């Protein structure tokens, strides 16, 4: 494997992700090749699904967290109404149009029961398309104080059931030993990602959030063993390099809210163009993926218990009722990353995030005196001008202009 480009002191991040980009460009061909050799590809949508189970079954997990394409979301309207969220419409739209090669390569879907929109996606996939769909029930009333032991019992049972179904689909039962190996692999990936995400924690960064986010999303698609190698390569390249010390004068932003899919650049790009800088995120496709390891009990003890514990009690999505934990977590991120303003990104018709906006606004303004801006959008480019103006005004307000 070739190393990254030669280090350029004037431009320290130059070439850092070239190797990853090159590898990612080959991914579709590699998946197709693996399929020809009999390996199955499992597509899933939501980070509550432990991909360790897919890996342990000898299959390839692909997180289908795509977004930002107007065409696919419009195509989805053939089945889903225009007032379902663009993510769900796109999920169906990609199946309708056949334009997303990753969707085309998937042999089966795993769908976690998170919100009504995703439930409808699952119903359509089951009813209209021929690929198997495995459902995973998610207890949404659990809380971080573990006041409801029945939640984890139930989730563990659901995972057992999924394990059995995946084993059957993959042609062999999924052994504990294989799950332990998969846990080790995924834990290693999470550790490397945490290292990468820690960089924006500094005032002056080598790898900015945009790079970190890109790296994270590459991991949704790539063969996980190869992905770990890429992360190790990036880590080795980063260590020892010092970021530029001069301040860039940009407003440090937290981007939080609805799923920011692979390809959904509109808001991050606008923030960059208008003089802001995302330094961290609170989205299900970003930093939260790597937040927590499966405990050592996953490797030496009850694998399913440990998986259930990690996935159920990771950063809660707003589909979960544990609002306090979301608020505290956001508050912690804001402090850790010296955030100066929050962009609350809400994909239209994403009800779970949208309903919490007044609560977040009230909480952040009262507790942290933190300015927050709601951006409601979809995958259409028609609102770019309006959003740009809003973000510009928000940045000016933060700067006190």
């Amino acid at each position, binding site marked *: 494997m070739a190393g990254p480009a030669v280090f350029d002191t004037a431009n320290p991040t130059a070439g850092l992700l070239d190797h990853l980009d090159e590898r990612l460009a080959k991914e579709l061909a590699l998946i197709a090749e693996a399929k020809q050799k009999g390996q199955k590809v499992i597509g899933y949508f939501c980070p509550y699904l432990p991909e360790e189970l897919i890996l342990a079954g000898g299959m390839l997990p692909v997180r289908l967290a795509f977004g930002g394409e107007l065409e696919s979301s419009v195509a989805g309207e053939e089945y889903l109404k225009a007032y379902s969220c663009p993510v769900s419409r796109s999920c169906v739209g990609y199946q309708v149009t056949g334009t997303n090669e990753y969707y085309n390569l998937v042999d089966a879907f795993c769908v976690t029961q998170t919100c*009504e929109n995703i439930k409808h996606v699952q119903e359509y996939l089951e009813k209209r398309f021929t690929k198997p769909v495995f459902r995973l029930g998610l207890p949404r009333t659990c809380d971080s104080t573990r006041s409801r032991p*029945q939640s984890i019992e139930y989730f563990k049972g659901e995972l057992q059931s999924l394990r059995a179904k995946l084993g059957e689909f993959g042609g062999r039962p999924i052994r504990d030993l294989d799950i332990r190996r998969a846990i080790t692999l995924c834990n290693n990936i999470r550790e490397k990602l945490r290292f990468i995400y820690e960089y924006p924690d500094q005032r002056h960064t080598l790898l900015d959030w945009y790079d970190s986010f890109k790296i994270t999303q590459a991991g949704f698609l790539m063969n996980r063993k190869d992905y770990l190698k890429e992360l190790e390569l990036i880590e080795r390249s980063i260590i020892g390099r010092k970021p530029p010390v001069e301040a860039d004068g940009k407003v440090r932003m937290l981007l939080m809210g609805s799923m920011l899919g692979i390809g959904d650049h509109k808001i991050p790009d606008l923030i960059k163009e208008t003089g802001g800088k995302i330094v961290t995120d609170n989205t299900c496709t970003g930093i939260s993926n790597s937040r927590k390891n499966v405990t050592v009990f996953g490797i030496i003890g009850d694998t399913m218990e440990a998986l259930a514990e990690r996935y159920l009690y990771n950063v809660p999505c707003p589909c979960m*009722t544990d609002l306090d934990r979301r608020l505290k977590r956001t508050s912690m991120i804001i402090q850790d990353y010296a955030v100066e303003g929050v962009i609350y990104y809400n994909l239209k018709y994403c*009800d779970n995030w949208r309903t919490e906006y007044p609560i977040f606004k009230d909480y952040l303004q009262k507790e942290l005196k933190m300015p927050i801006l709601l951006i409601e959008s979809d995958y259409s480019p028609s609102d770019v001008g309006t959003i740009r103006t809003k973000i510009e005004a928000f940045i000016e307000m933060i700067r006190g202009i």
Partner: protein
Amino acid sequence: MQLEIAAGIADLRFDRGLQTFPEILSAYLDFNPKVAQPEKKVVANGPLSPADIIYAAGALPYDFSTHQNLQAIFSGNNSLSQQAVDMLVSSEFNPWYQVMLGAFLYDQNQIPIDLFSTSIGEFDDQLTKSFQLMARARSRAFIDWEVPRHDAPSEALALDFLKKEIKQFILEISAHTGHNTGDHDLSRAVHAGNLLRGDMAEIDKLLAAKVVPLSGLEYYLLQVMLGDFARNPDGLHSQFSLLIDELNGRVENHESAPGIRTSPVRVYIMGDETQELHLYNSIEDAGGVLVGCDFRMPLYYGLVNETEKPVDSLARWVWNMPNNLPLQERIEFELLRIKMQKPDAVILSNVVGSRHLTGIERLVKDALKDKLGIPVLSIETTLPKENVDKIDYQINALMQMIGG
């Protein structure tokens, strides 16, 4: 509220021939539990969450969303939805919840709420989050309980989980009411609920008859009132019984409800609960009759088994509620219900902002056409009185098509 002079319903036609119905409706609209039973805690309850458990725990389960909305519709208060948007609620929300939130966040709800509670499942995210928002805004407790997904192979696991959720829910509500809730309380509440569920099943049977003795508007409103135990459910059952007697009297006399023509086109409605109450009149004005409606059917789709432990039977009943069934099972269940009512057409109701049907309308429509071979009309409504002309036009077109 004096129905005769209620501003919001001046254009609606009620069945003036019924003695009992106006009493039930007035009592429902004017009800204030803080006057009737001031010592009781009022628990705002989701429209499709069974009230039995809260009632057993010594509290008053109150369907806040529906009551607040109907009060607004009847009194002609059209401003609550915009008020909600002014309070940062999404303008893309289901109007039922916009109105509820608008009233609550502007302190215009007439009934003070002590705590919020709802079941949480693969349905109605907006309601759950709205309740959570309101509870937080006024520092009230929000108590939830989970209904796990319905999947036959995982029945034992799901029911075990659900039983534990119900038991914990009872404990949490009881902690607020100070009531030591036991199996006996739950059995009594289930029995009271079963009487009401039985009443509604009885009314459905009457609608399946050739001569339909009840108008659509009254039928819909009865379904709504059935689920609200805030008033004494025993008293409500007595009133329902009187009403059923009245309706049976009409059946014996081969007398249909006023406004229903001879040999009407039989219409079944399913989907999202609409605020456009004119729909029910429109069907009859165009020569139709409503013979069934599934808006609240999950609350009375069957009786809770009273012969086994109440938590066990409630858990099974809740898990099998039609709104918790996977799509295919739900469609099959609905088809059975629809066939019993012998409709000539089905109206599929969509409410802009609701997510219930957004994803499945087409699947449901196709299934209905395939399996029943009768016309299916999709309608889409928003806030009350904003859809009258469109609905009239669509309903008339449907009736003309069926009529020849």
